[in-house]
């Protein structure tokens, strides 16, 4: 039986109008501009533009800095996702075990969700800054040569930690929900079958929360791609020497700082393609996940 509807003919147009208008002006127009811009080359004075086909794309894809950005983004996403998700899963399983105080723990663990990524970056930077960070001081006092301003790997580490920290609560909430949806009877059956706690976790619980894990993986990756701009800008500004320059960051730098519009637009288009692929992937494989009765 199809959904019951109202017979009005004109009202629906009026109702969608605001969203459609905003979408057209602030989404489709810029998106098409990006596409258009990506196949143009502006002269240095911004006076004339010339159609150059895929030249911008070619130069972008062969630019070592761009390939570096791809590498950086990949490492950054995977590390952040892995770190954040494992910590969250650990905490979620712990939360499942306790009976008293569960609500309190959840409240206390939600905070980072509300913290702006940029602020999160600042906080961590503040703690680890070589000049006045307390932890930097402690690291150095114990012989560690800690200077994320000079060492690319350390900078990456700091940024990853800050980004992962911020995502813990989000992942935690989802893992808790996933764990709670596992029927107790399955776990009890395994216990009766002699499986110890760890074995139960890896052979029963972990596979059963696989859909959630998968979903979070995609979400965390998208988060690492885009929402972390603030963190990177606060902590390292993409440095030192591009060590933390992700794809999005590069778009920003090339477009707004270096004013290379064609290249930046081409990069945007490439990013769009990646996102579309990720979203399509998520919809296909994650949305149609297997249901465990």
């Amino acid at each position, binding site marked *: 039986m199809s*959904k019951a*509807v*109202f017979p009005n003919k004109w009202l*629906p*147009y009026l*109702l*969608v109008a*605001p*969203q459609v208008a*905003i*979408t057209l*002006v*602030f989404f*489709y127009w*810029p*998106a098409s501009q*990006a596409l258009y*811009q990506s196949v143009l080359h502006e002269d240095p004075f911004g006076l004339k533009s010339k159609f150059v086909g895929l030249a911008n794309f070619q130069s972008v894809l062969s630019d070592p800095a761009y390939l570096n950005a791809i590498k950086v983004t990949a490492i950054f996403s995977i590390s952040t996702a892995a770190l954040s998700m494992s910590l969250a899963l650990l*905490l979620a399983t*712990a*939360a499942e075990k*306790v009976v008293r105080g569960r609500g309190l*723990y959840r*409240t206390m*663990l*939600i*905070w980072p969700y*509300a*913290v*702006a*990524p*940029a*602020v999160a970056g600042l*906080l961590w930077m*503040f703690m680890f800054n070589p*000049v*006045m*960070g*307390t932890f930097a*001081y*402690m690291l150095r006092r114990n012989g560690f040569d800690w200077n994320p301003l000079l060492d690319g790997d350390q900078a990456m580490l700091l940024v990853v930690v800050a980004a992962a*920290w911020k995502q*813990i609560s989000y992942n935690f909430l989802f893992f808790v*929900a996933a764990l709670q949806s596992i029927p107790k009877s399955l776990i*009890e059956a395994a*216990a009766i079958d002699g499986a110890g*706690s760890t074995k139960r976790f890896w052979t029963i619980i972990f596979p059963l929360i696989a859909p959630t894990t998968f*979903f979070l993986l995609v979400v965390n990756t998208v988060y690492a791609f885009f929402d972390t*701009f*603030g963190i990177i*800008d*606060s902590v390292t500004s993409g440095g030192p020497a591009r060590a933390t320059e992700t794809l*999005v960051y590069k*778009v920003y730098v090339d477009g*707004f700082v270096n004013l290379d*519009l064609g290249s930046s637009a081409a990069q*945007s288009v490439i*990013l769009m393609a990646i*996102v579309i692929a990720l*979203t399509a992937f998520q919809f296909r494989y994650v949305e149609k996940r297997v249901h465990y009765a």
Partner: protein
Amino acid sequence: MIERHSIGRPIAHVMLVLGIVIVAFPIYYTFMASTQTLQAILRPPLPLIPGGEFVENYGEALFGGIGRIGGVNVWTLLFNTTVMALGIAIGKIVISILSAFAIVFFRFRLRMTFFWLIFITLMLPVEVRILPTYKVMVDLGMIDTYAGLILPLIASATATLLFRQFFMTIPSELVEAARVDAAGPMRFFWDILIPLSKTNIAALFVILFIYGWTQYLWPLLVTNDNQMNTIVIALRKMVSFADADTPWHLVMVTSILAIVPPVLVVVLMQRWFVRGLVEAEK
């Protein structure tokens, strides 16, 4: 519970407490720093107990006259950020609920077209279209305006999809009963649909408010005038780790001020928020 013996439970508690420490520590640390003098901050290690400067520092930031924070009054910053966050949350909820209502409860010729039009926007967050959107802002004269801060960020379809999904679970008979009861579409919308959507709206509000409050890249681009800064941007601009002029104690205070409102929103509306988050993204 399966294991009756004690080991599992206390370990779990320990881990959770550790988790809370990890999660809360940076904020705690910042709060401690915000109660110290500038000199104390510049000399590590920072003591872990509150200093004596709470009143002094907060007083200076909040009431110390114009322009304490990067040349701007902190109340202005808070105001801007609040306007932006509320604008995004409310704006997006309003346009999305209206669109979802139209798409689910009416049949009209361009229905599917509009649906896909809106759906595709899911694919591209604002960071991907920053440059051209910026150009559009310039063309429309929206640089340094609240509209410029808000509008591009309500253009995506996440909320619409959520509402659509929810509306499709409303039984047909309810709509029919309303029609028989002389309720036109808008009356049905207001009297019946909205009350039934309360939890969804609440959850979305929290999510969008946080989203709006924590925006960084977009406000950075679209505002030049410092008076239009959000608190997050101002914070960033205040800090230069190499520069000796940075008023660190005020930076700490501002950080706390930037964190408190959204955390309050999340903690107070926790129940709806958690429920909404977990169901929303599915």
